[in-house]
């Protein structure tokens, strides 16, 4: 992403991605609504989902998307695409440092807020935000269905 003066602006690059993610996620049949949160700040996208379409019995679900494009144009992004539902279960695919696991790229899940997260290393085919998001929506459906 390119700032007006031609330099790289990580805030602009990240925000541009968040706008695109908000637009694309609304195309998914399970998504009822997506918005930039907190209102006005827009540091993450929160999508309201119908968990049944993703194979879950929970009544309500949300997917929260955080994206930071990196301090330099050629740096890898840091992101967290995290699902939570009314049953208490939450899980997410993250690419960021985490003291509980060596790998930046990981999946974490827990049955309820009282449980400890379980972590596992994962890999991503692409760090392109939009294809990555669809890949994760697909993995989420598999996780929820096979639970």
């Amino acid at each position, binding site marked *: *992403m*390119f*700032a*007006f003066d*031609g330099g*790289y*602006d*990580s*805030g*602009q*690059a*990240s*925000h*541009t*991605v*968040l*706008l*695109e993610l908000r*637009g*694309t996620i609304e*195309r*998914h*049949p399970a998504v009822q609504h997506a918005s*930039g949160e907190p209102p*006005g*700040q*827009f*540091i993450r996208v929160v999508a309201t989902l119908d968990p049944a379409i993703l194979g879950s019995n929970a009544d309500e679900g949300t997917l929260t998307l*955080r994206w*930071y*494009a*990196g*301090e330099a*144009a*050629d740096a890898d992004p*840091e992101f967290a695409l995290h699902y939570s539902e009314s049953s208490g279960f939450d899980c997410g695919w993250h690419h*960021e*440092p*985490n*003291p509980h696991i060596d790998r930046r790229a990981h999946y974490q899940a827990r049955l309820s807020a009282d449980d400890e997260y379980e972590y596992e290393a994962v890999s*991503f*085919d*692409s760090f*392109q*935000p*939009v*294809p990555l998001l*669809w*890949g*994760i*929506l*697909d*993995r989420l459906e*598999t996780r929820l269905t096979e639970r």
Partner: protein
Amino acid sequence: MTDESGAELWKAHQSAFDRVRAVAVTVSEPKSADWIAEQAHVAGNTARDHLQRLVEMNVLRTATGGTATRYEPDPLYTRMQALRDLLDNRTRDDLLELRGDLQEQVEEWQTEYDADSPSGLRKRAAHADTAEATREMRRTANDWDIIAYRLQLVEDAIEHYSDYAGSTPAPA
């Protein structure tokens, strides 16, 4: 589960043109048509046609230098999209209030972390007491970068409100 079925899911819900656009407007560095085609799951020639159209629409521009044509988002388009989102359903007073909120958030972080910028906070994060604190501070620094950009956008939107919103002064 492979990411191939994620690609199929994406293809089922977004057109080839939309996929090419979504990839091309979010690259951090100029990319070739073949690279964009692979990411968007379209054929090379399809990508070239769509990219050409996106250049004509001023969504993208071609980068100079190198052998193959490379594409990058047009900075004016990027700016306009962000301003459009900001101006939707917001009056000038709403924007003034938002500017206050964003400034307040920045001041809060400055005080809490004794840092004057996101990069200052990242430096502090490297020397935090626990790994958990480091992670929290880095996340805040990332949010701060985005808030700083939003603040700059809000200033722009306030300054040029009547031009951007197309509002005309009330008749005398």
